[in-house]
């Protein structure tokens, strides 16, 4: 039971990490406001279900749509600018969502948070979601669109000279990523059954980015492995749990200095690759 719970929490966070990976890995955008999208997703789903009495699948859909719309709105002013602005505006967004949730206490319960959601999300749904999202990410990465995005990530100026519409590409990726993150938030609300505005602050968002970088910008498998290790680590090593973030930060700095491609470089665990490796032997 305990291990099941750990697995559930780890998988929930992995969905969030995948959302960040899509954005940072494909277009090199940094968002410190992912927490905002998580909260938006969680609260939208919870409010739709509890206050508006909508069925659960509809509530999930609403969370996804809200995340995408918010991503679109934030993207319009910021994605044309330098990446620093995007980072800082998403930072502001995260804090703004937090303040707004605290302010709208009648709807959201304010600082007391929201509880009393029925447990609608179990491990199977989360794992299926992960597989599905990974499949989407992988197909995107392999498609023409994904390769264009990676070109944008590596050199924006050169990419735009090659005729890639940088703004449109960034916008699409950002919208998809926001939707995934909001979806993760909605799953979170119906699995943990308690949400509050301070659950995801900018540090949590920063952690998601950092995990992406440790795992490696070119490696979906690496990112998933890293996130699984990081989020289950605390549960198994309670005695040094408080030092977890300090350790992570040190590891990150070392990785960035000595292995800038990430811990797993470009590794991808794919069926056909594993097969071909055995055949060669």
């Amino acid at each position: 039971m305990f291990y099941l719970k750990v697995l559930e929490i780890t998988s929930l966070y992995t969905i969030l990490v995948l959302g960040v990976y899509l954005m940072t890995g494909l277009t090199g955008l940094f968002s410190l406001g992912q927490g905002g999208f998580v909260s938006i997703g969680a609260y939208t789903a919870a409010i739709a279900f509890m206050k508006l009495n909508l069925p659960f699948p509809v509530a999930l859909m609403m969370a996804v749509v809200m995340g995408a719309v918010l991503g679109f709105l934030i993207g319009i002013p910021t994605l044309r600018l330098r990446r620093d602005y995007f980072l800082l505006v998403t930072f502001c967004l995260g804090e703004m969502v937090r303040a707004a949730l605290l302010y709208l206490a009648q709807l959201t319960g304010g600082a007391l948070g929201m509880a009393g959601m029925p447990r609608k999300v179990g491990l199977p749904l989360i794992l299926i979601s992960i597989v599905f999202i990974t499949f989407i990410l992988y197909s995107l990465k392999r498609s023409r669109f994904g390769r264009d995005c990676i070109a944008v990530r590596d050199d924006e100026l050169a990419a735009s000279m090659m005729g890639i519409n940088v703004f449109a590409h960034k916008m699409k990726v950002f919208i998809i990523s926001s939707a995934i993150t909001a979806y993760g938030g909605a799953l979170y609300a119906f699995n943990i059954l308690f949400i509050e505005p301070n659950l995801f602050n900018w540090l949590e968002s920063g952690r998601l980015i950092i995990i992406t970088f440790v795992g490696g910008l070119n490696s979906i498998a690496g990112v998933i492995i890293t996130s699984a290790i990081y989020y289950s680590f605390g549960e198994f090593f309670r005695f040094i749990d408080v030092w977890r973030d300090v350790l992570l930060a040190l590891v990150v700095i070392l990785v960035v200095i000595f292995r800038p491609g990430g811990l797993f470089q470009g590794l991808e665990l794919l069926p056909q690759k594993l097969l071909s490796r055995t055949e060669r032997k």
Partner: protein
Amino acid sequence: MKINLILQQLLNGISLGGVYALMAVGFGLIFNVLKFSNFSHGGVVAICAYFGYFISQHVYPNFIVTLILTAIVGGFIGVIIEKLIFRPIRLKGAPLTLFLVNSITAAMLVQQFFAVMWGDNYYPYPEFIKETAIHIGEFTVSKIYLLMLSISAFVLLILSYILRKTKIGIAIRAASSDIRTPSLMGINIDFVISTAFFFAGILGGVTGYLLGMAFTVDPFIGSMILKGIIAAIIGGMGSLGGGVVAGLLLGVAESLLIAEIGASLTPIVIYASIILLLLIRPEGISGKGYIVKA
């Protein structure tokens, strides 16, 4: 609102804005030279807030001495951060995103470290001033706020003198406009960058001390850097003067808004107006454009 209440809030806002301006300049100094958002500045602020508390409470409770000491320590922390974290990747010619990752990580490292070590308590600075307020007619002016304002102004004036008149200041400005050319002119660019971090660290030290003195010290004091970064955005990234003006504006706007619509709505209004500002005028107040070079 009554007119003297407004004036009162204006004065409080300007004093708070002075500290925001300090942060914005410390942040902008590094942005100018290396062109990345230096979140680790918040780490320097936090370390110095704790250091200032420790030294003034336990070692030597004198305001001026401890302030200067904290500022110098802040400067050296800035240099250490540069040497340990940013120099290795700079020499490798890493992309800007890695600088960002490292600076965010450093901020996180400091915050979590303090949260684990001393996060269970609040640490107040000693009372340097016995009588905390001056009464001028109907006004009540907090002495601590006056002190904050005068110190911020003093530090910023000195910095502006250094940047304009001294050799190293001119070198920093040269590196700000183009980092490659000065090294061809026989300027030791590593030294210039270290010095820029030293100055930024001094500003961070003063900021940390003043924030710790005005509020209390807790691990999340580094998050106050957010206000400095916002001021830097409003002022226009890369313009130190714009950052100062924007810092003051932000401080005033914040205290007036808090008095008028309450503390819970204020952050929403401020963040929303920043997003709007970026939509209308991304180059900020100063209008200094930033050109992407190939």
